[in-house]
């Protein structure tokens, strides 16, 4: 299926994701807060970018906007060169399915489904692969996050860290051009943190994915290609 935002024939710029002047207010009435105060940001193919900053500075809020899960009050978001911030729900949904992989900070899995089914879920919607190929790919992804032996466990039967790793595998299911991960190693021990981080950086290098991750872990931030620090709704 030819797509205007195909992964490989990259535009000269190599920019997969760009946002300019993003503003976001949250809450209503008295509780209305100016959370993002003009954020501009870009991520290139093959690069891993870390966003760091104190709790409550707006990292997750920014990531939801970049993942097209939320809409900015002002500013613009481009995905693979196409302006998505003003497009309708259907177009944003299609872009999420085909080009963006998202790892949430909390609640990762659909708990009534097995790890394997969770990973196959985005593939089934996209429908690019045959069922057998989907299954094989899901197995391979779970293997790569160290869960090859637990593919048939239900979400409820996995620990927080295991759930998080399944969520990483699931975000990679459709080979998205852009991977957005909100603290993907937050619940993981050193060994598994390294496993997940190595997987993400390897994919960025080998497949030219743009990886944006939020982290509180200075070691990980340091190993990224770039680190952007955020404070009180703006990059500093």
């Amino acid at each position: 299926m030819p797509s205007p935002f195909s992964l490989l024939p990259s535009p000269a710029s190599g920019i997969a994701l760009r946002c300019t002047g993003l503003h976001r207010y949250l809450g209503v009435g008295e509780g209305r807060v100016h959370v993002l105060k003009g954020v501009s940001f870009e991520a290139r193919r093959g690069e891993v970018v870390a966003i760091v900053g104190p709790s409550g500075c707006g990292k997750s809020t920014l990531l939801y906007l970049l993942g097209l899960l939320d809409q900015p009050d002002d500013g613009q978001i481009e995905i693979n060169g196409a302006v998505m911030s003003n497009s309708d729900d259907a177009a944003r949904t299609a872009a999420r399915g085909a080009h963006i992989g998202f790892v949430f900070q909390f609640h990762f899995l659909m708990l009534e489904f097995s790890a394997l089914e969770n990973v196959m879920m985005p593939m089934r919607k996209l429908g690019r692969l045959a069922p057998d190929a989907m299954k094989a790919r899901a197995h391979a992804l779970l293997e790569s996050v160290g869960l090859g032996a637990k593919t048939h466990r239900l979400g409820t039967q996995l620990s927080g860290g295991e759930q998080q790793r399944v969520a990483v595998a699931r975000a990679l299911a459709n080979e998205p051009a852009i991977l957005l991960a909100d603290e993907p190693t937050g619940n993981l021990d050193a060994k598994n943190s390294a496993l997940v981080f190595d997987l993400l950086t390897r994919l960025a290098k080998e497949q030219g994915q743009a990886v944006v991750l939020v982290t509180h872990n200075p070691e990980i931030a340091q190993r990224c290609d770039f680190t952007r620090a955020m404070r009180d709704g703006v990059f500093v």
Partner: protein
Amino acid sequence: MISPNLRIAFRFLTAKKRAMIMSLACTVLGVGLFIVTQATTSGFEEFFTRTILGINGAIRIEDRIQETMTSMAAAGSDDFYIANREGVKYIEGVEEPQRIADAVREFPNVRGVSAVVRGNVQLTSAFKTEDAQVLGINLEDHVRVSRLAEQIVAGELENFRSATGGALVGRVLADRLQLTVGDSVSVAARGQARRLKVSAIFETGYREVDKTNLYVLLPEARSLLRRPSGASFLQISLHDPARAPLDARRMEEILKHGAKPWQEREKTWLDVFRALRISTGITVSVFTLIASLAMFNTLAMIVLEKTKDIAILRSMGYERRDITRIFLWQAGIVLAIGSVLGALFGWIVTWLVERVPLRITGIFKADHFLVVRDGDHYLAAIATAVVMVMVASLIPARRAARLEPGDIVRGTAQ
């Protein structure tokens, strides 16, 4: 391949089995009892129809239409003729039964025609005297337009056919006069009396008929009633009685005689049956209504519990309409199971009800519950459930689809 939405719906549902039981149970009851009520009400209706068709036939031609303007139209002005169509006069009886009967037989749907001469008489037995209605028939013709042969409860139709001076007496009339087969009875009409012998006793189940009717052979009736020619009416049976109104209308046009289909003749009772069928159908649809409310409730609950799953699905590219479908599928699965179980339940209860003894006399005679098994009842029952439950499910399903993933992950979705 199973659609991903159906898969998800199934899993959501199995996690909420208990909550769905109410909706499922009410769907089963709604579908099942709808089928049972339709089966019994139609059972009685059909039996009534069979009874009255077996007595009076599908169509009766009772009078000649005399268009009073015909002669004037023939005299010249067509306009005048049309303008005075209301000037139609019905003249009781059929003057040329043979000619009309031959014409009626030309209709492809007609199975038989019988010319009948009717008159009021008094019957006197050794015990008492009763008013009665004598019907003069040609037996061969009449058994083709009625179920007289099957209605004989005592004596032999053969004796009636062969012996002169024989009569077929209605069961209730015979009881009142304390007549049995072989007894002789005096029949009086127009000031003359003669004796007839009871050849057989018939019972139609329709009390009015069994209480008043008496059949004799046509020549006997003609001489008794002093009516050497003509007939009181022609009784017609059809291959397809449902088409009677159409055929009757055509007969009126062609034969210039008033023809009444059974649907019109028995309208009062047929309306009663129809009202009964509809009202019982509505009553048991209360179960389906409860099923749809329970479904609404359960789905609304699942939507609340699964908002995070909805956000995850939406983040992976599942569209709003996928979310709608996931919830409608859940209703669909419950409906599918409920319809199958409900149909089975309805079939079994119908089977049981049919075995309930029940004595009915009056407009027909039966000794147990009457039922009709009709695929249309099953379809109507299931269609009612599908429409009601689906409409109720649409509201939570669409609410789920409207949720914004951003609001959900921030926890501000309500």
